[in-house]
């Protein structure tokens, strides 16, 4: 089916389902609903991005960019001030990042927040780092176990079959490590560790039996299955330039993995350049009827209607729309009788680590750019394993690699020998980097700015979010632990760092928690199926639904939550309960 046939602008049709957003979660919701025969409209604020066709920078060498992949600082100053703080933002990827001039936001005095965005068809599924881990039974039990945050209304066993389901389709590479704190995925073969990593893995296993080191699991077709290849996705070529888009379809994105399936059903329509302003709510029936949309280009307004609305606009996009949907029944945002909408905003805290040089292995190098690193899952995953002075814990990411000209450029040297030395391999370096849990706190809030609006007339988001003492103590401890671990295995010339003051919340790009689930409708927005307590035909399946951040990267869990919610909603619709 030609993608062009499914793009619509004006329509009088009442759809079965509207999905707001086309990123990781919106793509999954679209696939699942359309495959079950529901007429589905996906609404996306950004432009159309077609697989392969719209990856203009893919495969280009640095010399093909005037600033050799760096970005003009006038452009940064005027349009990408926040986005440029992301490691992944550069001249080869900037077209897949939001524009800060058009999408401004504010922060409370004395606070800061990094809101990194991707506003196009495919959302941040195009630019994500693809690290994919299941949450564990300990993670879902964490709030209950230590009393921070509200109890998740679901447990690992509720999500387990749905993890398997999304993993088989998306393709997750990883080893089956058999760890209770990091349940195995239905995985494709793992990427290989290099020799330095293998040796360190062996040493850690001896010295730190509670801190197993595994290869990073990622949404890449390390070895595609027949199913993947039938659908036009082939083996990962280890370019690790994924954020430009991948014509091999080798990593999971909306474009490579979910959208083609949804489009093939004939049940999908897509409205791009359509900014959802608010939900249309019918007080008499207590149902949402559709959405109001502002056209990205000419600022005209239009409406779309459906029996059910799924909010998949990313945690903060969804929250903005819901807060902006007010009525007599819901003066403070739709489905917000609890008053928690916008509160309990979380991210992960990636603000500590250590690294140093490893002697030897000079006769070895690596080939290809591995799209993942090594991973030490959280080893403080239940209260009995907590440190005394703070709660919860952190996972560690990292890896070993050999130095090259980028590091050697700092050294002394002039002339031919120096030039030759720059082209040669440097020492091995190994490092560990914190991926810490952030506690859910009521004070960490995003709200609508009372007066400031964007160019479409949408109230801007206003952030009041800070790291708490718990995150600060955790990062300090993590830096010390990393340094200690590296010392024990003989790593040389170690440097550790803590950057909590430098990198504000938002920096891990894992926004979570602003419309949390819960059993009690007085303290949560959603039930255990991502359905609003207040309004039965409104669902939120992105990260807004989280109760606790855990330490693992969240998108795989977003996928599982979304497909589970669709399954539930579809059954409810068939039973005519919605």
């Amino acid at each position, binding site marked *: 089916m030609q993608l062009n046939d499914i793009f619509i602008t004006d329509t009088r049709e009442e759809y079965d389902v509207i999905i707001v957003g086309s990123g990781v979660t919106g793509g999954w919701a679209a696939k699942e609903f359309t495959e079950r025969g529901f007429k589905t409209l996906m609404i996306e604020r950004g432009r159309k991005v077609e697989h392969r066709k719209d990856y203009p920078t893919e495969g280009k060498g640095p010399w093909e960019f005037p600033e050799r992949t760096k970005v003009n600082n006038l452009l940064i100053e005027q349009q990408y001030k926040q986005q440029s*703080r992301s490691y992944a933002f550069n001249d080869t990827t900037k077209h897949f990042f939001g524009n800060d001039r058009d999408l401004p936001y504010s922060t409370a005095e004395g606070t800061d927040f990094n809101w990194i965005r991707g506003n196009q068809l495919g959302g941040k599924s195009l630019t994500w780092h693809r690290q994919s881990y299941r949450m564990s039974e300990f993670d879902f039990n964490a709030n209950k176990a230590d009393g921070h945050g509200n109890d998740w209304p679901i447990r690992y066993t509720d999500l387990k079959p749905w993890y398997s389901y999304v993993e088989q389709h998306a393709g997750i590479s990883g080893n089956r490590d058999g760890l209770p704190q990091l349940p195995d995925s239905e995985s494709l073969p793992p990427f290989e560790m290099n020799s330095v990593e293998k040796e360190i893995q062996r040493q850690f296993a001896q010295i730190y039996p509670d801190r197993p080191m595994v290869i990073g699991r990622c949404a890449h077709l390390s070895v595609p299955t027949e199913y993947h290849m039938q659908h036009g996705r082939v083996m990962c070529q280890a370019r690790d330039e994924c954020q430009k888009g991948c014509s091999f379809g080798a990593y999971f994105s909306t474009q490579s993995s979910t959208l083609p399936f949804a489009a093939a059903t004939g049940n999908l329509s897509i409205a791009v350049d359509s900014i959802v302003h608010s939900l249309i709510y019918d007080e008499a029936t207590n149902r949402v009827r559709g959405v109001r949309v502002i056209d990205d280009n000419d600022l005209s307004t239009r409406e779309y209607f459906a029996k059910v609305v799924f909010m998949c606009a990313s945690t903060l996009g969804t929250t903005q729309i819901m807060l902006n949907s007010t009525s007599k029944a819901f003066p403070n945002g739709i489905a917000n009788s609890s008053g928690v909408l916008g509160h309990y905003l979380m991210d992960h805290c990636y603000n500590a680590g250590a690294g140093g040089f490893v002697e030897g292995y000079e006769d070895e190098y690596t080939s290809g750019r591995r799209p993942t690193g090594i991973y030490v899952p959280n080893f403080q995953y239940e209260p009995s394993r907590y440190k005394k002075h703070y709660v919860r814990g952190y996972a560690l990411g990292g890896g070993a690699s050999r130095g090259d000209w980028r590091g050697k450029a700092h050294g002394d040297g002039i002339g031919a020998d120096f030039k030759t030395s720059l082209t040669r391999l440097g020492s091995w370096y190994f490092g560990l980097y914190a991926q810490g849990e952030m506690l859910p706190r009521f004070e960490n809030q995003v709200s609508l700015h009372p007066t400031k609006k964007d160019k479409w007339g949408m109230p801007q988001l206003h952030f009041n979010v800070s790291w708490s003492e718990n995150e600060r103590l955790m990062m300090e401890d993590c830096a010390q632990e990393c340094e200690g671990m590296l010392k024990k295995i003989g790593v040389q010339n170690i440097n550790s760092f803590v950057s909590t003051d430098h990198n504000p919340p938002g920096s891990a790009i894992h926004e979570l928690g602003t419309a949390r689930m819960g059993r009690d409708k007085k303290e949560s927005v959603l039930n255990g199926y991502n359905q609003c307590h207040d309004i039965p035909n409104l669902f939120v399946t992105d990260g807004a639904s989280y109760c606790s951040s855990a330490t693992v990267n969240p998108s795989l869990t977003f996928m599982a939550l979304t497909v589970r919610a669709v399954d539930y909603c579809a059954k409810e619709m068939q039973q005519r309960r919605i």
Partner: protein
Amino acid sequence: MSASNNNTPQQLNERRWFIKRLGQVIGATGAAALATTAGVSSALAYTPRPDSAAKDGAVLTKEQLITLRDVCATVLPKTDTPSAADVDCHGFIDHQLSQCHSVDEQQLVVDILEAIEAQSEQVHNKPFSALTHAQQTQLLVDLEALNGFVASQKVQFKFLKQLLIFGYFTSEIGATQALVYQAVPGGYKGSIPATPSTRSWGSLNYY
């Protein structure tokens, strides 16, 4: 090679670079913030030219560009691969300064180029470009050894030198001839043999 000696500023810089790279492995946003971009400027898009030192550039004068061209040819001279001047690193640096760097950083480069000229006049009574290749090399070696130069000038020079090295290894010749370029590796291998003469990959995920 052991790196267990004391921490010189260069080692600290190298280490900071490794930490940034580590951040890229796990997708940590703040890591990139180590590279600052302050100040604003604008100019036209840049394509390498054979004659960049023939007239004034966007930031540097014609005279400064001539000095810079010869600094490029001295730091990374022609060997079995072309020199940094052959691939127009001097033109690139002028362009990059105008596009991606603050006025203060632009001034660092102007200052060190003038200091190099001044030193050349003082020691040899000739402009840098009129020196023999050996004299040019010695002068820059002296700069890094702080013979006739002060520490703040070395900092300026290091900034320029990094830009020069970046320009060289991100040029097509630098990335594909001086280094080995693997556009589509076809998969990852954790261990391949290496010798002291193995060249590193010029194809990278982030530059």
